[in-house]
Every structure is written in structure tokens, then in C-alpha cells.
């Protein structure tokens, strides 16, 4: 898989992504230099991917998460048999929590069981994402805000099946990340094409907005873990290209169908990009 960038007889940019051989993109010159035109071309195919990629939430779906090209875990909506089984385990082992929140209270909620493939997880765990507003109990417990100006419409809990400890995964828009992140966090350079057309600014640490959202992990004392995740949409070839240019390991998937988005796990204290995750969504 690779993306080719060539100039036609009119000196316009022609882009062909080998993952989508039936698609031909042409971006017009408009007095841009070759380099500017190529940047616009990358933004053009990123936007095309995002606008045509229909990934609504439904009550009957499975999300597969790949790390370096290998399937790491699968999340199921709570109404599916796999989801029901995991919810039963939560209700059985974390009764206190089950008294505070109904894991099946929203049919969009998703759950999974997974092995620790990345920091800060160390044991087999259960993941629960909720699409209802966060109850006060958890806001106090993890010392997080649910201001809709900053947080997204879903949030997560991570249940360690060995220690029984619970971590909270808060999902922020870019402004929320900038507001609540640790002061010592380093934000790596983004690829050019994840920027906000609205402001026309390239993304940087100081940006208020970006076509990305971010999740940070909190322990029960309200401490934010070193590792956070940045999520965005793009065609696989563009992600691969950026990873290659920056020596970031990336596992290519041969089957590109159902790719929804990508997630980057960052060590915030060093700015190092630890993993690039591929998310696929299947409607069942």
C-alpha cells in the first residue's frame, strides 16, 4: 500500500492511494507551489475519507482494536451476547459500582475483556465505555469534570480483574485536553493534515482546536497517568506515510474495510509515540 503523488499535464496534483485503486483524486494548482499543493492534497484525501466514512454508533456493533497490525481486543455493545457476558462479570465482581451505574443503561455502551498490551495496564482487565453523562460519584472519585464544553459524550472505566482497581478514561475534545492535561505533558508534532480548517492553523501544543480528540487515564486519587491517546481519522496510507517519515512503528492491515479511526498512544513525559492503534467498526 502506498500513495502516489504526480503532476498531470496541467500541473495539477493527481493522487492515487493503492488501498483505493478505483479512486482518483485531482487537486488543482491554484498558484500553489509543489510542496503546498502536496500538503493540500493530503488534507484533501483526509477530508474525503472522513466525510465518506459512515461510523455512527448503534446498539449492535463490534469495534476491533489493532496494535501494530495485531488484533488486541474487541469491544461489544452491551446488548450483544458477548457484551451481556462481560456485563455479567462486572455485575458479579464490582457490585458497588453496579449499584451506582447500570452498565446496560444505554444500549450504545460497549464492553470488552483484554490483556495488558500497553501501559498503564498490567493485568487482565475489563473495559466499559458509557454514553450517558458521568454520575457525580465518579466525578468525585476521579476528580474529573463533565463540562460538555470540554468532554466528549462518552467516558470509560477500566477494571483490573486481579487487583480490582479501577481506572477512569476521560475523553476530551482538543480544548478539554489543553485545559486539563498535566503541565509536564509533551505533545508530539502532528501530521500536517490533522488541523482545523476552521482556524486554518496547523496543530500545535497551543492550538485550541484540532480534528482529533484525546483520552487521559485517571486513578482513584485523581492522578493523570503518563500515557494518553490521541484519535483521528485518515486513510491508512496517509497514516503509514507519516509513521514512516517519523520512524514510528505501524502495522499495516491488508483488509482496509471497516477502518474507522486511528489512535496514538503517547508517553506524555517524553512525547514519545509508543503505539499506533487501528480501530475497525462492524455493524452486527
Amino acid at each position, binding site marked *: 500500500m502506498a500513495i502516489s503523488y504526480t503532476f498531470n499535464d496541467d500541473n495539477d496534483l493527481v493522487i492515487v492511494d493503492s488501498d483505493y485503486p478505483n479512486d*482518483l483524486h*485531482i487537486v488543482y494548482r491554484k498558484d500553489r507551489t509543489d510542496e503546498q499543493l502536496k500538503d493540500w492534497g493530503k488534507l484533501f484525501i483526509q*477530508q474525503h475519507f472522513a466525510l465518506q466514512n459512515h461510523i455512527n454508533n448503534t446498539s449492535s456493533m463490534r469495534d476491533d482494536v489493532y496494535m501494530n497490525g495485531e488484533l488486541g481486543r474487541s469491544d461489544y455493545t452491551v446488548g450483544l451476547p458477548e457484551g451481556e457476558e462481560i456485563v455479567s462479570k462486572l455485575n458479579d465482581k464490582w457490585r458497588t459500582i453496579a449499584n451506582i451505574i447500570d452498565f446496560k443503561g444505554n444500549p450504545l455502551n460497549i464492553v470488552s475483556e483484554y490483556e495488558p498490551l500497553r501501559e498503564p495496564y498490567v493485568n487482565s482487565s475489563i473495559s466499559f465505555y458509557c454514553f450517558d453523562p458521568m454520575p457525580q460519584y465518579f466525578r468525585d472519585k476521579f476528580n474529573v469534570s463533565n463540562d460538555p464544553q470540554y468532554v466528549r459524550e462518552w467516558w470509560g472505566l477500566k477494571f483490573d480483574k486481579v487487583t480490582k482497581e479501577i481506572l477512569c478514561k476521560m475523553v476530551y475534545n482538543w480544548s478539554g485536553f489543553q485545559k486539563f492535561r498535566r503541565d509536564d505533558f509533551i505533545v508530539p508534532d502532528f501530521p500536517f493534515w490533522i488541523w*482545523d*480548517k476552521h482556524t486554518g492553523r496547523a496543530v500545535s501544543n497551543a492550538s485550541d482546536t484540532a480534528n482529533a480528540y484525546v483520552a487521559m487515564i485517571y486513578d482513584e486519587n485523581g492522578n493523570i497517568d503518563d500515557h494518553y491517546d490521541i484519535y483521528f481519522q485518515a486513510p491508512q496510507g496517509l497514516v503509514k506515510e507519516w509513521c514512516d517519515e517519523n520512524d514510528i512503528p505501524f502495522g499495516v492491515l491488508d483488509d482496509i474495510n471497516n477502518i474507522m*479511526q486511528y489512535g496514538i498512544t503517547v508517553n506524555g513525559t517524553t512525547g514519545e509515540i509508543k503505539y499506533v492503534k487501528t480501530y475497525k467498526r462492524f455493524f452486527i
Partner: protein
Amino acid sequence: MTLVSGSSFPIGLNDPTNSASIANPTTTSGTDYLDETITIGNRSAVCYVRLRENDPEPGIGPFYRSYDMVNGTQYGYSISTGTSAKVPMCDTNPVISFGTSSTTSGYTQDFGYDYWESVASDDWTVLETTHSNAGGWNFGSGNGSLGSITNGTTSGVTYQDASGTTRTVNMIAWQKNTASGTGAANDTANRGNYLALGMAAGTNVDNTFYQITVNGVTFLRSNAISYDGYENGGGVWWHWEPTDAQIDSMGTSGTVNVKLSSASTTTVKNNGIAEEFGGEVASSSTGGNVHLSHYYRNAPEGYVSSNASTNIPADGSNVEIRFSDFWGTSFVAGATVHASHTFYPDFQSFTIYSSTTQNSGWRTASFAMAASPTKMSTFNPTGTFLGFTTSSVEILDFYTNETTSGTHDNFWTDLRMTMDITTSQTSSSYVANNNVSQIAVWSNTTGTGTEDFSAEWSDTNGVTFSQYSGKVRAFIHWLTADVTAGSGKSKTWTENFGTNTTATSNTQHTFKIYKSGGI
């Protein structure tokens, strides 16, 4: 064609050419690349040939001598000559007297030499041959410059030719040949006369110049006797053979105008409004039943399209129409429309994980909206459309868009359109702007009056063609800067399509896609 302009030409409603024996006026024009004045200089000038007489007597010789092929007075303009100068005539002051010296100098490819030597050699005896590398020019005044030209420098005078190339003229000179006797190039009446044009560089094509005119005497480049480069390199010359009378007309003193020009073109202009825009063009005997009021711009009679000059008042504008409104105007074909579609636009806002998208308009292909009616136009473009041979193009989406993780304000950021083109061809058959010119939108059901916005097809930011099952799906994208708001309108959500999430609560709109022309 175009109508005449200016009050000096009569203009009629019908056709004065027919009704009053007033011929359509013609104008002849060309472009003068160079238009300067020469202050004529003069100097004696000889083009000579050097001969070798082989063994006139046993033990004596060979002998060398020279003959004048052309002599007389040279007039006009030249920068300084000499072996280092890049001019057509390189005077090297060679040994030219009779004697036994075999010293050679001069240039056998100097201006005119080859042309005249072939004539002069007819006079040679069997013992004489043209001595190699021994010929050329000698000026009585030495190697200085000749005359002057306005805007000239020591290297010449420059002009820009038809291809945009800067040319440098270093000599425009003429001479009437007065040589006689042995070796003289005078076998015909004008032989030896010349007009010389020298340039530092230049190709022998009309783009360099089509014609040269000296004091009203014109010579076509294509009629030059010869065109060549200098033997000492670095330049080119053209050589014409004027008559004695032409030489006399070019002048021998004072100042003369000189031009290097393009070809002249003759333009015929109409002098009747109906003649230009259509309508009844009657004979002088029948007259014509045409009315000036029929010639308002975009009037229902259809003679003057909406694309014609805005000097012509628009139909319904309540502006009095005058004959002078039509001076210099031309018939312009009216726009042709592929499809016109009236619909209720919808508005939607949705979040897809990393960003929030707002759309207003019409979406059916993906993230469908509840716009009404549910199906937009399908049209037959006849022939090819964007390079694809097709008889069916279906418009699936036409909407304003903004995707951001920030806050949406009043303005949308891009305009998008999706079409399914039924074709057996692949995406690579795409031809930009083929058989489509513009899109435009009105917030009414008639598609008339001031448009909300329009966009030229040639201004699209980018296109994507996706091939599937006998169709090519075309995604067309304009940035907001590529779109032009109608007069007094702005590119906002509220003014363009509206923001009500119930489609029928928004104003009904008309969308047109133009095959040619536009609003």
C-alpha cells in the same frame, strides 16, 4: 463580430449597411514591435572580393587583386563595426591592392558577399579565382557607428517580439550600388542595392517580425533575399534588394521612421444592432420590424443574452435604452443549462468522534439528510461530461459544509457536490471542465433574479472520481474562496439554504448546473 464604437460611426437599429448604403466599417491594425526614428548617417562603403591570378607568366606570381562588387554610399543606422562587433558587415581593412602578398583577411560570409560574388565571378578570367577568406566590407570612415536611433545604446536598440523575446537591432542600413566594371554586381537593374537589418540574435520567423518599414517603404521578412548568421558569430542579418526608387524613398539625410511590425489584420465591424444581435435584418426596400426595447439585456426576445455587456441596460431595470449603449458591444451566446432543480434544503449537525460536521443543502449518498423531494436531478449531458461518455448524470449531493472540532460560526467553509456518472469508462478518462461551466443557487423557485451564490467549475479546489459498477462517482469540492456570493449576499449558513432541521421549513431553493456560460 462586434458593433462599431465611438460617435464617429453611425449605428442603426437594423442595418445601415442595407438601408442607407453605409458599408460596415473596416479597421486595419497590426502591432509595431519596434517604432523608432533614425537620424540618417552616411559613409562610403565597399563590398569587395579578393582574387588570385595564378601564374600569369612563368616564374612570376601569383598575383592578388581586388574588385568592388558593390560601392557607393551607405545610409542609415549602425552601431560601431569591426571584427569584434556583432553587426552584419565586419570591416577588417584587409590588404586589397594589387601585388604578390598572399595575406588574407576578411569574411566570406559577410553581408551580401555570397550573393554578389556569384555574379561578380562571371567576369573572372580563366586564371583568376576568388581567394579564400578574402572578401568583405570596407568603410571609408573606418569602424565607427553610423547615424543614430532613438532609444539606441552602444549595442543597439531593443524591442519585444511576438513571443515576448527581447531582440536587439544593431543595423538598419541601405545603399544604392554604383559599382561598375570588372567584378561589379550590376548584372540587373537593382543588383547590389540592399537594405540590411542586423540583430544580435533572432530566428527567421514571423514572431521575430513580419515586416520592416523604413520611411514608409515596407519589406516583408518572408521576401528577404537571404537570412544568415555572421561569420564572426553572435548575430543574424536579413537582406532585401530594394529598387533605386525605394532607396531614394528611404532617404539619405535627416530623420526617418523605422518599424518592425506584425502582420496587419483587417477587422469588419457591424453597424446595426439587429445585425449584431439578431432579429429582422430587412432590405432597404422593406424596412425592418424591430424594436429597440427588444434589445434590453436578457429581454424575453432573447437577442441580448444575460452574458452580454452590462453597458446594455438589463430588462426590467427601468433604465432608458440608448443607441450609444451598444457601441463596442458583441453578441454573446446565452447560457445553456444541464439541469435546473427546485428543492427544500435541510440542515444537519453531527459529531463523528474527532470533529463535528455541519451540512446545509442536500445529501443522499452518505450522511443522508431529509431534504425534499428525496431525489435530485438526473440529466443527460449529451456526449461527454467531464470526459466520460454518458447519457445519465445523477446529482446525489449538493451542500455547504464545515467540519471542525472547534466552534461553528456563521460561515460555512466549503461547498461539495456528488454525482453518479453512468459510463463504461474508468476514472482516468476524466477531462477537467468538459461540457460544464458553472453552478448557481437562488433562494426562490424560479432561478431568476440575484443568485445566492455561484461557482465556476474551473475554480474547483479538487475532485475525486470513484469507480463502481458501471458508474463513476464524482466528488466535487470548492473552498469558500472559490465561491462567489450574489450581489448583497454572504456565504453564511442562514443566507445559504438555511439552518432549520426540518427541510420544508427552509426556503425553497433552485439549483442550476450550466453546460456553458452562466449567470
